[in-house]
Structures are given as structure tokens and as C-alpha cells.
């Protein structure tokens, strides 16, 4: 097991290098850099001063030289500083001579996106699991058809449209929920309980929307997994030895049907991170998606590269954790891995 883990772990390094190379090339294939977007804020900037800026950021060098400079910095885990946001560190906080701490951009944004995704994942499991099980047990009956249709509608709803509609309905028409940001005015004067409630209220819509659009895949997966398991011989065995139906379904079938879900969660990480762009820009939530969107519009290369690298790293770690968890949960897989 340890040997397998080490192998997987070291395999992540060439993968990360590949990912960063592809991201870097794609980013530089397209025309334009920070100077062309900054020029739109300050049309008076002369060609000479733009050239100076390019030299400062090494943007005048060939792409491959820029990439090796980036790699050299990355080798010391230095993600660099933002072009656009007054030299803020991209990843982690730095301290200057006087002891003033400047927080990193990803350091601030990542926990917010992770929190939204974890909460929506919990909501997804709470809803999708029972739906999938009922749907499988009533295969091809009315309940199955209704659930499947509902699930497919959830899958097909454009998230941003639902966000817009709910925002209008709950926020503008009825004033039930706040529609943007993470904190109300005067948040800092609240008691800790009030603070938590305030933040949760702000998170309610984004979490709900991300759960609705992610629910379908999981519910269908549970349904199909259950159907497959229910036809296995050991289910017949369990039934024929006189176990009651409840134990057959929840003790034998469901446990086995849920195993592959572990892998699905691992694989869905990039989608979750990528999907945060639209929701975060609608609700003005300062998470990874919003950060990336702003960075892309500003052509802020270090931030773009930082987010892509961290996103890919999270994905790889997620996959590794999922595979290990799967092996831990299923002895058959474990034996396959060891051999």
C-alpha cells in the first residue's frame, strides 16, 4: 500500500508540470497581455511606458523563457505577485520589513469556494441518496419516472438562470435573502452567532443553486448503481437465506452501490471549481471563480497560472484521496492495488 501511495504521489509531479505547461502555452497563444488591458484604463500610457512594463514583467521574452522563469520561481513554491492588484502575493501572505502582513489572493478566495462546495456537497448527498434509492426500488414505475424527470430538469437548468430567478424572487420581490456578497453591513458588530447566521444567509442561494445543478449526476448514479447491485447473486443469496428486505437493501445493496460514488466525488472536483465562476460573479462572492474571472479580464498572468495550478493540484489530491478511500472501503479493490 505504501509503495502504491508513493508511486501515485510522485506521479503527480510530472502531471503538474504537464498541466502548467499546457496552461502556460494556451495563455500565451492568445494575443494581448497586461499592458493592453491596463491601457484601457489609462489611454494616455505611451508605447514606451508599456514597453517598460513588459520588460519589468519579462513579457518581452519568448514564451519558453517566461515559462522557465515561472518554473524556477515555482520550484521554491513562490507563486509570484499579481500584476494588476498592486503586487499582492498570489498565493500566500507575505510580511514586509515593518511586520505588515499582506494576505495572498488565493489564500483569501479558496476557503470561500471550498466552503460553498462542501456545503452543497452535503446537500447533494442528503437529497440525491434517497431519490436514487427510491428510484431504483421502483424501477420503471411512476415514482421512478417522476424522480428521473425531476433529476433531469435539475441537470438541465442553467445555473445562472436559476440564480437570477431566485435572486429576483427571494431577494428583490420578497426581501427574504441577501442577494450579494458574503456579509451584511454592520456584520463586524454582530455576536458570533449572528455572524454565522448572517454568512449562512448569504451562502444559502449560491449553495442551493450549486447543489441543484450537481444533484442529477449523483442521483442517477445511485439509481443505476443500485439497479446493477440488485441483480447480483449475493442479493439473491441474502434474500433466500431469509433476511428481511430492509436489511437486504440497506445492509447489502446500498453499501455496495455507494462505493463507486467515492470516485465520482474525486472526479467532480474540477467541475465544481470551474462551475464557481458564474455563481460567484452573479452573487459577487469573492471566491476562486470571481478571482479567476477578474484575472482573466485583466490578463493578470501570475494569478491565472496560480489558480490553474492550485485547481489542478486540488484535483490530483482529490483523485488520490478518492482512490485510497475506495481501496480502504472495498477489500476487492485493495487486493487489486497491492498486486
Amino acid at each position, binding site marked *: 500500500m505504501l509503495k502504491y501511495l508513493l508511486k501515485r504521489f510522485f506521479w503527480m509531479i510530472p*502531471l503538474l508540470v*504537464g*498541466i502548467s505547461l*499546457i*496552461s502556460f502555452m*494556451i*495563455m500565451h*497563444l*492568445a*494575443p*494581448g497581455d497586461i499592458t493592453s488591458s491596463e491601457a484601457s484604463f489609462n489611454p494616455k500610457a505611451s508605447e514606451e511606458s508599456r514597453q517598460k512594463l513588459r520588460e519589468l514583467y519579462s513579457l518581452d521574452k519568448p514564451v519558453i523563457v517566461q515559462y522557465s522563469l515561472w518554473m524556477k520561481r515555482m520550484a521554491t513554491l513562490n507563486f509570484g505577485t499579481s500584476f494588476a492588484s498592486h503586487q499582492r502575493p498570489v498565493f500566500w501572505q507575505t510580511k514586509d520589513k515593518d511586520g505588515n502582513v499582506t494576505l495572498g489572493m488565493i489564500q483569501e478566495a479558496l476557503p470561500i469556494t471550498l466552503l460553498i462546495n462542501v456545503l452543497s456537497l452535503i446537500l447533494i448527498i442528503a437529497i440525491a441518496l434517497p431519490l436514487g434509492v427510491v428510484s431504483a426500488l421502483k*424501477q*420503471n414505475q411512476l415514482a421512478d*419516472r417522476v424522480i*428521473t*424527470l425531476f433529476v*433531469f*430538469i435539475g*441537470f*438541465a*437548468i*442553467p*445555473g*445562472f*438562470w*436559476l440564480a*437570477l*430567478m431566485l435572486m*429576483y424572487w427571494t431577494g*428583490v420581490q420578497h426581501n427574504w435573502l441577501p442577494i450579494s456578497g458574503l456579509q451584511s453591513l454592520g456584520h463586524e458588530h454582530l455576536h458570533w452567532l449572528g455572524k454565522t447566521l448572517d454568512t449562512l444567509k448569504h451562502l444559502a442561494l449560491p449553495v442551493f443553486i450549486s447543489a441543484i445543478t450537481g444533484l442529477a449526476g449523483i442521483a*442517477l448514479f445511485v439509481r*443505476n448503481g443500485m*439497479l*446493477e447491485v440488485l*441483480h447480483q447473486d449475493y442479493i439473491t443469496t441474502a434474500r433466500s437465506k431469509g433476511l428481511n428486505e430492509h436489511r437486504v437493501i440497506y445492509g447489502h445493496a446500498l453499501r455496495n452501490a455507494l462505493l463507486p460514488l467515492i470516485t465520482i466525488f474525486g*472526479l467532480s472536483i*474540477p*467541475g465544481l*471549481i*470551474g*462551475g464557481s*465562476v*458564474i455563481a460567484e*460573479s452573479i452573487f459577487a462572492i469573492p471566491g476562486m471563480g470571481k478571482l*479567476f*474571472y477578474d484575472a*482573466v*479580464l485583466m*490578463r493578470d498572468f501570475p494569478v*491565472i497560472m496560480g*489558480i*490553474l495550478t492550485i*485547481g*489542478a493540484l486540488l*484535483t*490530483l489530491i482529490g*483523485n488520490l484521496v478518492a482512490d485510497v478511500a475506495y481501496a480502504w472501503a472495498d477489500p476487492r479493490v485493495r487486493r487489486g492495488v497491492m498486486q
Partner: protein
Amino acid sequence: MKHALRNPLALIGFSIIAAILLLALIAPWIAPYDPNAINVKAILLAPETNHWMGTDGLGRDVLSRMLYGGRISLLVGFVAVGIATLIGIVLGAVAGFYRGWVDTVIMRTVDVMLSIPTFFLILAVIAFLTPSIWNIMIVIGLTSWMGVTRLVRAEFLSLRNREFVLAAQALGAKDARLIFTHLLPNSLTPIIVSSILGIASAVLVESGLSFLGLGVQAPQASWGNILTDGKEYIQFAWWLSLFPGLAILLTVLGYNLLGDGLRDAYNPRSNQN
């Protein structure tokens, strides 16, 4: 296909898609107005007999814009998936047929591509290019071929050593003949299913990009940018946001129901009852 359409949900999906495709095809003949004709005397009219879906902030007829926008949204879906499927078939076939180091290189590239959040990648490229419908199709296509590649490779691996393939090989069939007349036709069903499901997600991605203002540019209509225009009027013109959202929902729903129905019909394991 016949078998799949006995599933009521797949039939619903098929009907939705057929209806939407038909409407998009005959849009020029049935659209009541020019989709880009501005009419300052008819700004933000609610749905009525002359304008079934109302008018927008420039007095353009929303129904006409929806019909023409449908052509764009569907076209983006088709072309993007076409590109992705083509790349996927070529790479998957090469990897699955020749195995060895080619296989390793292709599959590791797939792993790398799958680890990058795709929407970020699309965003990074689109934001740097002049937004146009062709750029969007190409970029969506170039970032969504990984699934098909894996699928085709897996099919080829399992078919490669079947008796009919070995027999053809023993009779002296060349590689190209084996691939195009024996292996590919037998892998077609899963490829079609994944393409149908792919169109659904391409339509969603396009509308998301248009919504962020990075997609199809005004005055050309697409469902995504009708919705973006509607965003600003949401407090007093609900019809501008409702109809394009419903159209996207129905299209994606239709493709998903159809794709899933087809997959069920061809997967004997989930059909034992």
C-alpha cells in the same frame, strides 16, 4: 433507436429535440419580425398578440430573436461536439489500436487535460480572443474531447481481440480497413450517446459564456445573450429572462433524456426487468 423510444422519457426527449430543431431550421420563414429590427415605439412590451414573447429594451421582438438565437445556440452545440468527437475518435482509435507508447502519451495527456478545470481553461482562452461564435465552437471543442477518447479507446481495446477482428486480420486486412470497417462501426453506439450528451453540455457552456458577456456578440442573438440583456430589466420585464432560460432548459433536458434513454436501451445490464 426503436427500442429506446419505447422508454417514455426518451420519447419526450426525442420530441423536444425534434421540435426545437424544426423551429430553428424554419426560423426565417416563421419569425414574425426581423430579429435585429429596432422599434423605439415598442420598447419592453409585455407578451401580447402582436409580440407573443414581448419586446426587449430596444423594441426588438423577443420571439423572433429566440428563433434566430436558437439556430446559433444549436449550431454551437453541434459544431463543438463535432470537433470534440472527431478528435476523440482519432486519438482513442490510435491509442486503443496501437497500444504501446502512443497509448501512454495520449492517455497521460487526457489525464492532464481532465485535471484542469475546463471552464477556467475555456474562459482563459475566450477572454483573450475576439469573442465570436467560431472561436467559441473551436474552444469548446478543443477542451471537451477527453471523454470520447477514453470511450473509443476502451471500445477498441475490448473489440481488438474479438474473433471477427482476428479473422479479418488473418485474411490480410490492413490496419485502416480493420479500424474503419470493423472496429469503428461496432463502437458507434456509445460514441453517439456521448455526443448527444455532449451537445447538452456544450449548449450550457455557450449560454454561460454569453451570459458572462464573452460569448456570441450583439446584435447577433443567442439564448445566452438574450438572457444577459434581460438581466438588466429583470425587475420590470420578466419575459426577457424567462423565455431564453426555458429554451436552454428544454434543449438540454431533451438531449439528456434522449442520450440517457439510448444508453439504457443499449446497456443490457440495466434492462433486466
